């Protein structure tokens, strides 16, 4: 019977300073010469990370009560509408929200400004009630003046993602970046062998309650992410091909850093937010050792035409090729370009490694694991 390690055993090694913690990049390189049994013996934790644009992000904020009190209904922060359809002074700042359709400043910028400690203009109106008589407010807030500022992102850290190309004769501006006509480029947005959910493709160690690095602070996996899909075909290395599992994550935005939360604007698409996520993967058995040794050459994804509007599947490619700077599609050599930052992802994996080694970051056993039989529904037009 092969050896196994429990999370508690690994945490005990962390507490006593005996744990061996490596980044996913280091383990992938080791994997060329070592067997999973060797890796299980030598390595306790592997740190994974990603820093890419993740639209499905945002933050809850509680402004505190004014004197006299107010049930804030229509609310803006720096003129960006925020969702006030919850209790009196609670709101949700959606990362992609803007005041006017073509604005380049949006919810993500408000979040970044708040994390940076800047003052933000709060304006709100209300109908006024017997218990909340005030009908208007205009003031400055910042992260120290508010009660809670909690990042809660419904869908982050996609396990794999499509490569976007454009077969049409016109330039296309998409959430996958600028796509030049006639297969002028191929854009991808995953950190490959460093990516959290590609190092635990069956989600054996990551589940509800898993402690993670989120935007520079310690955060948690709250739930599965929206559009969580376990139904994608899996390649010979156990990796789902194309968009599959996702995570919903939560953390204290007051503790985060603008180095790892960055507002962005994609031309003619809109505002989005780069989110830095790091997840430690415990090497609990030979199977997990084998998983964390995954290399870019073994991770494949679909190449999709984002230009034509019908999302046609044009081929498959692996991440070794994507990171090389060029790929061949339909006999044509195409430049490949990343949208997610490997430099910052590596920095996050390294920080998380140091946090664990120092004993400040202990691993968690998931409170519950995710469903393994989830598919996607379409929104049918029924009327």
């Amino acid at each position, binding site marked *: 019977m092969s050896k196994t390690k429990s999370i508690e055993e690994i945490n005990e090694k962390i507490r006593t300073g005996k744990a061996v913690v490596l980044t996913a990049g280091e383990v992938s390189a080791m994997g060329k010469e070592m067997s999973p049994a060797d890796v299980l013996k030598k390595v306790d934790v592997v740190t994974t990370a990603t*820093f890419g644009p993740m639209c499905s992000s945002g933050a809850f904020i509680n402004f505190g009560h004014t004197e006299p009190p107010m049930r804030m209904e229509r609310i803006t922060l720096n003129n960006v509408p925020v969702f006030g359809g919850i209790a009196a002074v609670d709101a949700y700042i959606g990362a992609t929200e803007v005041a006017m359709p073509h604005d380049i400043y949006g919810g993500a910028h408000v979040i970044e400004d708040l994390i940076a400690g800047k003052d933000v203009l709060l304006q709100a109106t209300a109908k006024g009630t017997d218990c909340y008589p005030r009908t208007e407010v205009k003031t400055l807030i910042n992260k120290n003046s508010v009660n809670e500022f909690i990042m809660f992102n419904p869908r982050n850290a996609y396990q794999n993602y499509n490569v976007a190309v454009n077969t049409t004769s016109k330039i296309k501006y998409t959430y996958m*970046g*600028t796509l*030049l006509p006639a297969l002028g480029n191929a*854009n991808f947005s995953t950190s490959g062998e460093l990516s959290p959910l590609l190092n635990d493709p069956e989600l054996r160690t990551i589940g509800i309650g898993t402690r993670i690095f989120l935007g520079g602070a310690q955060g948690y996996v709250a739930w599965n992410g929206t559009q969580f899909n376990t139904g994608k075909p899996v390649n010979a290395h156990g990796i789902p091909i194309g968009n599959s599992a996702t995570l919903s994550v939560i953390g204290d935005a007051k503790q985060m850093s603008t180095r790892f939360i960055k507002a962005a*604007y994609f031309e003619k698409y809109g505002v989005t937010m780069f989110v830095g996520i790091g997840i430690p993967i415990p090497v609990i058995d030979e199977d997990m050792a084998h998983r964390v040794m995954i290399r870019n050459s073994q991770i494949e994804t679909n190449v999709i035409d984002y230009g034509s509007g019908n999302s046609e599947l044009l081929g498959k490619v692996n991440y070794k090729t994507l990171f090389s*700077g060029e790929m061949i599609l339909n006999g044509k050599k195409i*430049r490949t370009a990343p949208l997610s930052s490997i*430099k910052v992802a*590596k920095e996050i994996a390294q920080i998380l490694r140091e946090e664990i080694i120092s004993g400040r970051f202990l691993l968690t056993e998931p409170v519950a694991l995710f469903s393994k039989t989830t598919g996607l529904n379409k929104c049918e037009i029924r009327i």
Partner: protein
Amino acid sequence: MSSKRFVLTFPPELTSEPITYNLIKQYDIMINILNAEISPGEIGHLVLEMSAPTKVLRQAMDYIKQHNVDCVPLEKKIHYQHDKCIHCGSCTAVCFAGALTMGHTTNELHFNAEKCVVCELCLKACPLKLFSIDISE
């Protein structure tokens, strides 16, 4: 023989002097037009690559300046806020000229201004809007 890229800025009133023609004909400079923006009555811009012996290039500069045309090396006109860059690589997607590339070992963005053809696609492609090209001054 040296090869350099310049941004030429023409005053609105300059219409009679065939500058580009003379650069080729009189100075025997090999010219490659990379970008041109000329409208009647407005300041015009011409982005050129000029190849000629250094001495000839210097004479040509004097000729251009005599006609009140501003001539500045291209790299001085492009601004990239390196300190704010997150090295995502989005700009490399559109840079068909190969001026913007990702370093394979550093994972950092490299900007080689000498390869830039001033297509301005990176201005839109950068999600943090860190590029600007100032050819209007």
